[in-house]
């Protein structure tokens, strides 16, 4: 499979000369399988450019939402395939105790927040409430687990033809920091990441910043390195960069974390436009 990073920023878009390398768009990753299936992970602002690159030969797109925080759905209304008659779009998202996915997304895709209602979209749209478990889309086998982040939030493990990509853009495996549990089944997200060829994982804070943000649902870079190492992934891609962090600071944060702990896996800074083959 081939993953293309269309947005790696967290919380809020931040476009400007100081974020050119890492990019300013919020979470969106395109994953294409060998059979041509198109998965889109999250609908942050990066999804607008992705939508413009999905040509008429593609008849179906499956959008997997980890959760419904604004930075992960803000681009949804600007995703071109939603406006193409004949295009089949499936949106998969986390469960809720009170409302289904359609009702929750309609809070955004309706006036006064947005001029177009879900029911007025011309594509053929199907929404799926995803509970922890496994499902298939085209040639992909997908496993979803709830992971530690405020509100229902899914991590996805996507496998195809022997390759595995794990995606947890918003994840605080140990609230308050500290050591990961010795028992892996008691570590949030571990089963999603275990042995994956590529892990895209929350890396929002520095160790120094984390104490001010405990419980906000994000990791500090060193914690992410330790999580990736424990899970035995092949490559870690840092993701969900804080909007207040410019390119130079993101470089520095990773260098500092690697001085504190160097995992066995390779590290790739999550930069918008990067293409990762698995």
């Amino acid at each position, binding site marked *: 499979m081939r993953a293309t990073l269309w947005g790696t920023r967290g919380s809020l878009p931040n476009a400007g000369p100081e974020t050119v390398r890492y990019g300013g768009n919020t979470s969106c990753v395109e994953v294409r399988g060998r059979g041509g299936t198109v998965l889109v992970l999250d609908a942050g602002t990066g999804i607008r450019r992705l939508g413009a690159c999905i040509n008429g030969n593609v008849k179906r797109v499956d959008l997997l939402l980890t959760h419904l925080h604004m930075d992960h759905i803000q681009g949804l209304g600007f995703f071109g395939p939603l406006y193409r008659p004949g295009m089949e779009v499936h949106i998969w998202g986390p469960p809720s105790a009170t409302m289904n996915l359609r009702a929750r997304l309609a809070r955004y895709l309706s006036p006064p927040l947005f001029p177009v209602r879900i029911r007025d979209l011309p594509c053929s749209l199907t929404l799926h409430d995803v509970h922890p478990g496994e499902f298939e889309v085209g040639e992909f086998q997908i496993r979803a687990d709830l*992971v*530690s982040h405020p509100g229902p939030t899914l991590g996805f493990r996507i496998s195809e033809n022997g390759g595995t990509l794990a995606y947890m853009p918003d994840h605080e495996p*140990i*609230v308050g920091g500290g050591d990961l549990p010795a028992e892996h*089944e*008691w570590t*949030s997200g*571990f089963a*999603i990441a*275990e042995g994956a060829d590529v892990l895209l994982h929350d890396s929002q804070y520095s160790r120094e910043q984390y104490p001010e943000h405990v419980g906000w649902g994000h990791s500090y870079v060193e914690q992410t390195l330790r999580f990736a190492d424990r899970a035995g992934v092949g490559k870690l891609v840092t993701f969900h960069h804080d909007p207040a962090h410019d390119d130079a600071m993101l470089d520095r944060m990773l260098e500092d974390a690697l001085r504190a702990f160097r995992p066995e896996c390779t590290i790739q800074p999550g930069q918008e436009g990067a293409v990762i083959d698995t």
Partner: protein
Amino acid sequence: MTQKDLELILLRQWAAHIQTPIWIAGVEGELLFYNEPAEQLLRRRFDEAGEMPLDQLAALFNTATEDGRPVTSRDLPLGVALSERRPAQGRLRVSALDGSVRLIDVTAVPIIAAGNRHLGAIVFFNEVMP
């Protein structure tokens, strides 16, 4: 490997930070976790506890009512919370694993997650001081 339900993971993380003795049981009553204050009360470290199935729990701690009548596992607040899916409370006399006898108030609350998933019960202990 299968991840434990996130609700249980978060409960366990939370319980590890709480001073109140807390016990977390699975849907069949099996022990999932107890915190350090509960270790002090029961006089056994969680990591050394091993299997503690519900049907052996009352006997393990010589559990009795305040006036000394034996209590079966099913009649423990934990047993009630699991079988009837409602909070239950009781004052119990228990023998800690070092043999000391303690009087404790026990409150058990079922854990019902989104989707009406029954995951077990959480039990709070409060030692009654003489």
